[in-house]
Structure formats: C-alpha cells, structure tokens
C-alpha cells in the first residue's frame, strides 16, 4: 500500500446534492479498489483562477488515502469519464504505509470530526427557540427587500423607453 493525496475540483455550478453524490462516488471507488480513506477535507466552493469549460467556480476536495497503484489507475480512469469533475490531481506521499499508524490516524481524524460536530449539535438544539422568535420577522423582511429591489429596476427599465418614444 502507498499513501496518496488527490485533489478533486468538482464543477461548482452544480447543486450541492450533485456535488455530494460525486464526492461519495469517488470515495466509494477508493474503498472498492482496495484503498483506505484516511481523510477527506472539503474546501468548499472557490472561484477558479480561470474559466474551465465556461465554469467559474469549483468545489475543492482534498483526499488523503492509502491504496495500490491499481487503485489510483481506476480512480484516474473514472476522473476522465465523469464530467462533473473538472480537474483532478493525484500525488504520492509515501511508498510505504504502516497500517497500525494509519488506523490510529483515521481514528484520530474521526474523533476530531466528532469533536467539531459536537458543539454544532448543541447549537442546533438551542436554535429552534431562537428561530421561532426570529422567523416571523425574518419572513417579512426578505419579501419587503425583494419589493424594494424590484421597484427601482422596473422604473429604470421603464424610463429609457419613455425617453426614446
């Protein structure tokens, strides 16, 4: 087993679910091809430095995994097939993998993720009350804002026509 790192640039104009499906698909390929996923880091949407196939945003994912050359070969074959992925990059990080250390690292990663999620869960529990209080006001405001934005536009559009006539 070797240690690899891949960067996936998923088309950022796709809806979130579609991106999620894409990420899941490639993660699954790693595990079905005898690889072990160590860490999957999502950077999220980022503006691309230049347009690629008329796409301006990319959803960046950095994946750290262990696998065999066959794993990588299969992954890269799929990168080329799937056009939801606009760019990809794979680099070998090390030739040998200590499986025990790897397991420890995965466990540490899972723990860290759990720790990161725990405060979120607490916050989520507290939120409903707050939302209940805020919601009526929030529901009214966006509607008013939309009207306010639309109205001037309508005037601007109407005005030049009037002049031309």
């Amino acid at each position, binding site marked *: 087993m070797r240690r690899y790192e891949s960067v996936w640039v998923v088309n950022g104009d796709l809806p979130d679910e579609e991106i999620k499906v894409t990420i899941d698909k490639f993660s699954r390929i790693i595990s079905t091809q005898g690889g072990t996923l160590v860490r999957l880091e999502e950077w999220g949407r980022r503006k*691309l430095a*230049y347009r690629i196939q008329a796409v301006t945003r990319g959803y960046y994912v950095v994946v750290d995994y262990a696998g065999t050359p066959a794993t990588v070969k299969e992954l890269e074959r799929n990168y080329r097939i799937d056009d939801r992925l606009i760019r990809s990059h794979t680099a070998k990080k090390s030739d040998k993998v200590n499986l025990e250390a790897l397991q420890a690292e995965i466990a540490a990663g899972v723990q860290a993720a759990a720790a990161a999620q725990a405060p979120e869960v607490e916050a989520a529990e507290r939120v409903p009350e707050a939302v209940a209080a805020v919601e009526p006001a929030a529901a009214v405001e966006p509607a008013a804002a939309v009207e306010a934005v639309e109205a001037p536009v309508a005037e601007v559009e109407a005005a030049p026509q009037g002049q031309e006539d």
Partner: protein
Amino acid sequence: MPVMPRRKRKQFYVRRKVCRFCVDANLPIDYKDYNTMRQFVTERGKIIPRRISGNCARHQRRLTRAIKQARLLALIPYTPTAPPA
C-alpha cells in the same frame, strides 16, 4: 548610450538573498498552499526567477513544480484574467 567612465570598483549594496525555504525548514512547498505560491509569481503570473527571489536551486525546482500544479488546479492563474468582453 553614452559610455560611462569606468570606475575602479563598482560600489553597490548587495543584500544577501537567502532561500526562504532553507531558512525556515518548517515552511513546506505545497501546491495547495496558493497564498505562498502566489508570492513567487509576478502580477502577470510568471514564476519569479531564482536570481530575483534568492531561492536555492533545489527549492526553486520544487517550487516551480508546485506552481505549475497549482495552476493546473486553477488555484493560481496562468495569466491575469482579461475583463469580460
């Protein structure tokens, strides 16, 4: 151009340039670290030569490679983006 009278000894202040990656061994060359990569390209997106940046040959080679990888992933531009026509 007029020929300048040649002085016996050219006196100019040379600041010793040092390779940033040698000075700080903790500073990794990573293509994903686009902010660092950006420091080693010009506004036009060209890789700054060793002669200017002061990097050592070894690190410049690695840096060049990393910059090119970052460009491919659209993390840093090949060239400044033209305003939309």
